């Protein structure tokens, strides 16, 4: 069963659909079928990161949203196609997780859609991790049994754009999608015109108003998405960081995670988390031209913990600086060290104090505002 959690019907809930494909039934060097798509299919080798990303996301959803006072988690549909059968414990013991074939994904999607549709104040969250591509201007997500028809390879692929258009007919006002796949154009890799992927629902021909519906892709159109083998993807972790509070803005005494700047924020988190020694061009998260609107996804009662990177100007002064970051009664301390000071502090106004036990620079302090999603600051100091 793909419904690993269903908590009963409350008035306003979050409903999540999480899909991951590690194992492709008709792709890869051994399983691709002879035909015009074989060369393309054989390079779609099995993955190991998507299942890690999906279980990390599902675990986060259960840990952080089941008791969420704003929009508690009402249901979680989880589909993972992996080499071994998967189980997931949503709090009531391990339960088997179904694979993500087209039919199973369509069924889960329709259940999720119906739940989301019950209340306009619901929040819909959709996550996909696995192989993907673009056919023309359309993003296509490859499900576990893609390629079962060797002459119509994309029959069991998901036409994500058309499905998103159909989501306008869903009454749920806040719909967030997070898509972690490559978006390279498949036409460049084929000698035949690709067949069409399929949508789970068809958009109605009557007017349906736009929803607050950010779609956040892990990479830009035409580009590849990369992820470390056997670990959750950087994109998945950046999305969870954003939902945890790095996409939050302060309103009165609360912090609200809103749809408006979700893609921008996730991209900033992605770049922040990128290892400084990483080679190649950075992968850039993209909104895909979606309409994010500006509605609330979560409400946090406490200020989010925001990552910061503090150094001195001139840079060499950091090696002898005793640093303190103070806010009311809270204080973070860092002893002299030749590296920038990296850590997390509650969002808000802080006082940064630098002392120099060796007496090589004048002590200095300055106010520093630390706000989501991250903060870099260089404290100017003067040598003695």
């Amino acid at each position: 069963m793909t419904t690993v959690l269903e908590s009963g019907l409350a008035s306003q809930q979050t409903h999540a659909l999480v899909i991951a494909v590690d194992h492709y039934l008709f792709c890869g060097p051994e399983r691709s079928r002879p035909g015009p798509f074989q060369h393309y299919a054989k390079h779609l080798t099995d993955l190991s990161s998507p299942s890690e990303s999906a279980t990390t996301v599902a675990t986060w959803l259960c840990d952080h949203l089941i008791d969420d006072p704003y929009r508690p988690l009402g249901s979680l549909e989880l589909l993972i196609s992996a080499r071994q059968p998967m189980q997931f414990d949503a709090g009531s013991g391990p339960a088997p997780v179904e694979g993500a074939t087209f039919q199973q994904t369509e069924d889960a999607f329709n259940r999720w859609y119906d739940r989301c549709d019950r209340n306009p104040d619901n929040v819909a969250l959709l996550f996909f991790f696995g192989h993907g591509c673009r056919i023309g201007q359309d993003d296509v997500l490859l499900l576990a049994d893609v390629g079962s028809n060797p002459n119509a390879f994309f029959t069991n692929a998901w036409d994500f754009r058309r499905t998103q258009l159909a989501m306008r007919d869903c009454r749920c006002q806040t719909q967030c999608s997070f898509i972690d796949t490559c978006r390279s154009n498949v036409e460049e890799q084929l000698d035949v015109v690709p067949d069409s992927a399929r949508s789970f629902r068809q958009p109605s021909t009557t007017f349906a108003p736009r929803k607050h519906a950010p779609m956040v892709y892990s990479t830009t159109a035409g580009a590849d998405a990369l992820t470390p083998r056997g670990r959750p993807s950087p994109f998945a972790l950046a999305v969870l960081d954003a939902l945890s509070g790095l996409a939050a803005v302060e309103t009165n005494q609360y912090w609200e995670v809103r749809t408006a700047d979700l893609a921008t924020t996730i991209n900033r988190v992605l770049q922040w988390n990128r290892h400084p020694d990483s080679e190649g061009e950075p992968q850039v998260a993209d909104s895909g031209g979606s309409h994010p609107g500006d509605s609330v996804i979560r409400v946090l009662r406490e200020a989010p913990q925001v990552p910061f990177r503090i150094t001195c100007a001139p840079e060499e002064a950091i090696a002898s600086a005793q640093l303190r970051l103070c806010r009311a009664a809270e204080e973070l301390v860092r002893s002299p060290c030749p590296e920038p000071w990296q850590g997390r502090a509650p969002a808000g106004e802080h006082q940064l104090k630098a002392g120099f036990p060796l007496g090589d620079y004048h002590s200095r302090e300055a106010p520093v505002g630390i706000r989501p999603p991250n903060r870099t600051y260089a404290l100017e100091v003067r040598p003695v």
Partner: protein
Amino acid sequence: MPLVYVHGVGNRSGNAYDTWARQRDDLFREFVLPAMGAQPDDAILSPDWGSDGARLRWSGASLPAEQIEILGSETGSNVGGSTSSDGSFLTEVAAHEVVDNPDAVLRSIATRDVSSALDLLFSLVPSATGEESARTRAAARRLVGYCRFRERLHPGQDQVRRYPWLASVVDDEAFLDRLWAESSRWTFDHTGASTPIGQQESAVEVLGGRDQLPAWLSRARRSLRNALARGVGSSASAVVVTARALLGQQLAQLAGDALVYLGQRGDVGSPGSIARTVATAIESAHGGRGQSGPLVIVAHSLGGVIAYDVLTRFRPDLTADLLVTVGSQVGLFAELALLGAEELDPPASGAPPGQIEVPPNVRNWLNVVDWADPLAFHAERIFDRVTDYRYRTSAVWAHTTYLRQPMFHARLADRIRKALA
């Protein structure tokens, strides 16, 4: 400025030529400049003498160009982002390759010579800039590194012995996939050695396929396929007519530019405009050679004749550490007594070759001759200090594309390294 490149016949500045020149210079930087001890970002001086060359006043109305459309490459000129110059190049390939199966052209060439297939492929790669250009150059190093390793492992052997997997691939797509996969452990370093880079499982997964053949290589393969597919079923006579027309074009270009050059050659005190353009570039490079290492001149086709003429007749005060003539007619022009050696007698039977003395300001001279290139001529039998390097491409279409071919550059770099040692 240690490297001067003198272009050949028929080159005229414009979008297609500029694109071609960028690819050529990328490969110079990747292979030849390191062999000279220069830095990859050192300047390459390319005097443009084409604007003073021959001009067909009626756009080639006298040339037998009508049949060129038989193989359809004019419409293929836009396939895969290739330039219009690629269109005529594809026509040339089509005219000289027997195309039974347009899906297996590269494979067919590879059974003769994998390097030629690789060079053909790169001749069709659209010009790239920035990060894409860096990736293209890295791919060239990878593929050259692998092919050079296999050649040295099985010297003188046939291609199937060198590349046992070749027997199991049936078409170009499979050939390229396999070549790309097999080459994954190799690169070609700046000392001219094939270097294994270790084989370990990548720590990264691509959410759209693992180690896919770069899209630009796939595009090049498809542009070749689409262009050649139109020629399948053409009669042998049609192919011959097309080949004749293309050779006629090349000869017309050579004759035109050569006649203009010789007609306006000038004399020592007053060189013609083409000679002046090339001399100025060599002089400029000559002025910078003290700081930047040796001065190497690479000259293609008629450019070789002009470079030789400039160094030996007009500016003997300029010294080239190495002159490389590629697919050039210097030997032919000398034998026709067009370069001022008419007083020399032909060698007596059994006498050692090398009758014309190469002046000392040309310290080394390497003449690259491809037997398949109808416009390439020997020099070793005419001049006393020149080495003919016999470069076998098995590819009649090579004349126009040597300088876009990574295997050619790698081999040229080897020779330059030895000549300057």
